């Protein structure tokens, strides 16, 4: 769901950049406080893995495809939605400048939707329901919800730009990403979180009570 240049006028794109920069600054502050020796290699491995998997689009309904975002996965494993923000920011920078996947003027909007909104919605949903339904089902639900709400945010931003009609955009974006979210985001996130929990339980255990720290 990378927004390309030309879908949002430059003034609005600049406003999204400013909001994105505030969250990027907060995510840098999170890293300065919480990123320890053990988390650096996990962060780097997730950055490379998420970049690679975002290049692999999965076919869905109606001649359409989609891929996972990975921010919720990174947030759960590293213990804060700011981890997802920082990681997706780096991925979107490389995707935009090297591969033209997502525009440059609208990169702030992409960071806001796919980095900030997806990671925060997904991580908090996971955090709230974890005690009740368990870690893996909540990782699935959080990942699905994060992608879905991010897609709706993209629909709203492009509608606010006057490029999309609001209701059809929300229906189409919602429908496509509700499907992408099941396999592309929910299933992969649950599998990876389970794998990390089995091989490196101390990593997730040390973060499960930490909650959200900026």
């Amino acid at each position, binding site marked *: *769901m*990378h927004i390309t*240049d*030309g*879908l949002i*006028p430059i003034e609005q794109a600049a406003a999204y950049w400013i909001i994105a920069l505030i969250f990027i600054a907060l995510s*840098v502050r999170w*890293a*300065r406080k919480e*990123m*320890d*020796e*053990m*988390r*650096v*290699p*996990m*962060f*780097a*491995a*997730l*950055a*490379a*893995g998420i*970049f*690679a*998997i975002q*290049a*692999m*689009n*999965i*076919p869905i309904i109606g*001649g*359409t*495809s*989609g891929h996972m975002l990975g921010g919720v996965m990174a947030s759960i494993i590293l213990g804060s939605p700011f981890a997802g923000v*920082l*990681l997706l920011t*780096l991925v979107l920078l*490389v995707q935009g*400048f*090297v*591969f*033209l*996947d997502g*525009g*440059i*003027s609208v990169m702030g909007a992409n960071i806001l939707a796919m980095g900030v909104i997806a990671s925060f919605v997904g991580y908090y949903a996971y955090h709230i329901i974890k005690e009740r339904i368990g870690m893996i089902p909540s990782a699935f639900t959080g990942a699905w919800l994060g992608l879905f709400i991010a897609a709706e945010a993209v*629909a709203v931003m492009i509608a606010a730009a006057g*490029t*999309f*009609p609001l209701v*059809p*955009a929300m229906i*189409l*974006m919602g429908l*496509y*990403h509700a499907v*992408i979210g099941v396999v592309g985001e929910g299933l992969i996130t649950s599998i990876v979180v389970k794998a990390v929990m089995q091989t*490196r339980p101390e990593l997730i255990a040390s973060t499960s009570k930490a909650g959200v720290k900026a």
Partner: protein
Amino acid sequence: MRKDAKKVLLAGALVAVIISLLAPFLASSNPDGLDKSVITLVGGGDEEKAEEIVSTNDPIGYKAPFPDYSIEGFGKAGEVMAILIGTIVMLIIGIAAGHFLKKS
């Protein structure tokens, strides 16, 4: 770097490289959810018309070195190389950012 930390990095890098090698062959070439919405809602179902309208409104016209994860003239091999380069660059940026930003 501690030994178990190194293991995490190596395992992650291996998985990422395997995905990069497979992606050009397994990825769907269908438009993604947003592209499809743009084709439907901006181009009225016409992909070329949608692209023309969007590129007319593009305020900067940025040219990337490997647009759409491909290297011009190199086909599938170029796609494998482009994604592999991106994955390795991401790994380096991830390590660099992690070390630069980590708590002291």
